[in-house]
């Protein structure tokens, strides 16, 4: 159980993370790639050559050129600018929803594992039912019923990710709560809340963070997929999935419309998977590959 391996890890949380990173070059490459993309997204208002919503009928469906590096779409909007702005949206939606899922799922998992007994049984059963929904199907149902908006997308993605975080938080909690020092805390009369927050949480947070990086990749994939289906943030706002959806209509003669955003999504998800994969290798000795 990787959770326990990491829970035992000595030293500061940051030191643990750095050590995990160093075990595998893949995660450094992934991190560099991802940070570069985040930087581009943050700088979008400064570096994007055009306004992402500016239409120009004279340059409709222009192929890549010196003026428009990645060409223009069917409204004459600059693809590169839309990609940069789309990155912001994609990153904000996925980050907020995964942070929410980490928080809610983490609390559910810790409390459920700590309280134990019948309560634990019922809560985990409910989590299993949630888990049995494929994340895309769940996302589709939620957004289809609540309506497509940024907040609803975040709710949908968070909802699919809560159960896995609850499970990952619960397993080490059950192990840690039996330790002597927790017994000692109880003897000292510490409240349950304090024991959970101060004495259990630090032991399991690294595990949750590693999982977060992998789920961030999934979140970006789900957001893009829902936007592609037509359930994303409403046009004309630039979203990668939405750009592919629009570009797909012109796939026979203007393939670049859908190819560039496709590559962008692939690059982000790949970089996050590289980070998560390297970290997982590092914390799970069974999978360790590069001794």
């Amino acid at each position: 159980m990787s959770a326990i391996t990491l829970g035992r890890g000595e030293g500061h949380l940051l030191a643990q993370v750095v050590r995990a990173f160093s075990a595998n070059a893949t995660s450094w490459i992934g991190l560099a790639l991802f940070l570069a993309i985040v930087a581009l997204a943050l700088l979008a208002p400064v570096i994007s050559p055009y306004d992402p919503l500016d239409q120009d009928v004279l340059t409709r469906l222009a192929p890549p050129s010196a003026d428009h590096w990645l060409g223009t779409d069917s409204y004459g909007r600059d693809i590169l600018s839309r990609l940069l702005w789309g990155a912001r949206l994609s990153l904000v939606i996925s980050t907020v929803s995964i942070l929410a899922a980490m928080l809610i799922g983490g609390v559910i998992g810790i409390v459920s594992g700590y309280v134990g007994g019948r309560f634990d049984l019922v809560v985990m059963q409910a989590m299993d039912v949630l888990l049995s929904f494929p994340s895309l199907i769940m996302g589709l149902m939620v957004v289809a019923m609540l309506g497509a908006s940024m907040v609803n997308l975040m709710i949908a993605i968070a909802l699919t990710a809560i159960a896995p975080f609850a499970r990952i938080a619960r397993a080490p909690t059950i192990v840690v709560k039996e330790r002597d020092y927790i017994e000692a805390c109880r003897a000292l009369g510490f409240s349950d809340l304090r024991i959970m927050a101060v004495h259990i949480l630090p032991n399991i947070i690294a595990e949750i963070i590693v999982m977060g990086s992998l789920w961030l990749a999934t979140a970006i994939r789900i957001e893009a997929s829902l936007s592609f289906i037509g359930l994303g943030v409403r046009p004309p706002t630039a979203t990668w999935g939405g750009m592919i959806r629009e570009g797909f209509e012109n796939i026979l003669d203007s393939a670049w419309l859908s190819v560039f955003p496709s590559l962008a999504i692939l690059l982000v998800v790949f970089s996050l998977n590289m980070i998560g994969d390297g970290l997982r290798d590092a914390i799970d000795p069974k999978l360790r590959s590069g001794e």
Partner: protein
Amino acid sequence: MLGYVVKRLLLAVPTLFAVLTIVFVLARVLPGDPAQTILGDQATQEALENMRHRLGVDKPIAAQYAEFLVDAVRGKWGTSLVTGKPVVDEVRNVLPYTIELTVTAIIVGALIGVPLGTWSAIYRNRWIDYLARMGSLLGLSFPAFVSAILLLLAFAIELRWFPVISAGGLDDPVERLRNLALPAINLGIIMAAYVTRVTRSSMLEVLGEDYIRTARAKGVPRRAIVWRHALRNALIPVVTVVGLYLGILIGNSVLTEIVFNRPGLGKLMVSALNQRDYTVLQGMMVVYAFVIVIVNLLTDLTYGFIDPRVKRQ
């Protein structure tokens, strides 16, 4: 074994109710007034009343819930607001396509993933291993519609090996296979990425076992050790992962069906979405609830067949 099957079947019942309850909450409780959504802001009070009555949402929520559960189990999944056809008929028409697609994808995924994962484990830390690992990580990073679009561009639009729209020509088996090829390859390679990784790690573990060392000491040829002794044991976790992966496959098949314009459950749900066909949408959610429960049941049963320890618990 029979006892295990019966127990699993009985356990599937509460799961089905739980999954249906989630669907009910999503479809009936959360959206507010579906009649208003369907008819828009301009609708008269009378039209709204009629629509509410037609949808059955004018009753108290507890009565709605009971009715919803009974209808779901009896296969009364509503009639389309657009075509007037019962949802169950529409589902019956397209279900074979989705099953055909997913089953072929599983076969493609296993045929690519198992050998690749095995080679990757045997040649650990050599170039073929790195290639397989990077390749599978890349495969995991593809949203299914992105890979589908790239395949479509390369093999249907540029090379013209396959049709751009994967429907029609259903009586002709060759034509049917040509229509199936690209969508199945698309789902298959993404699945192969998962299978490769699990096969590799499972194989690495098995290759370190004592009985493999014994076989080697006995002078059993390397090839026989790997493919006969090790792989058979390494495949147990792989089957579990295939089971877990079925959920992802269901989601990915929705995206694949849209890109290749192929009939299927996903396509049905998305066209209901685009036409704002509320009843079909709700019916499709019930259908997916059943699919989820059945897939979980199949996974549990397969697990029981393969690993005798599970049955005894």
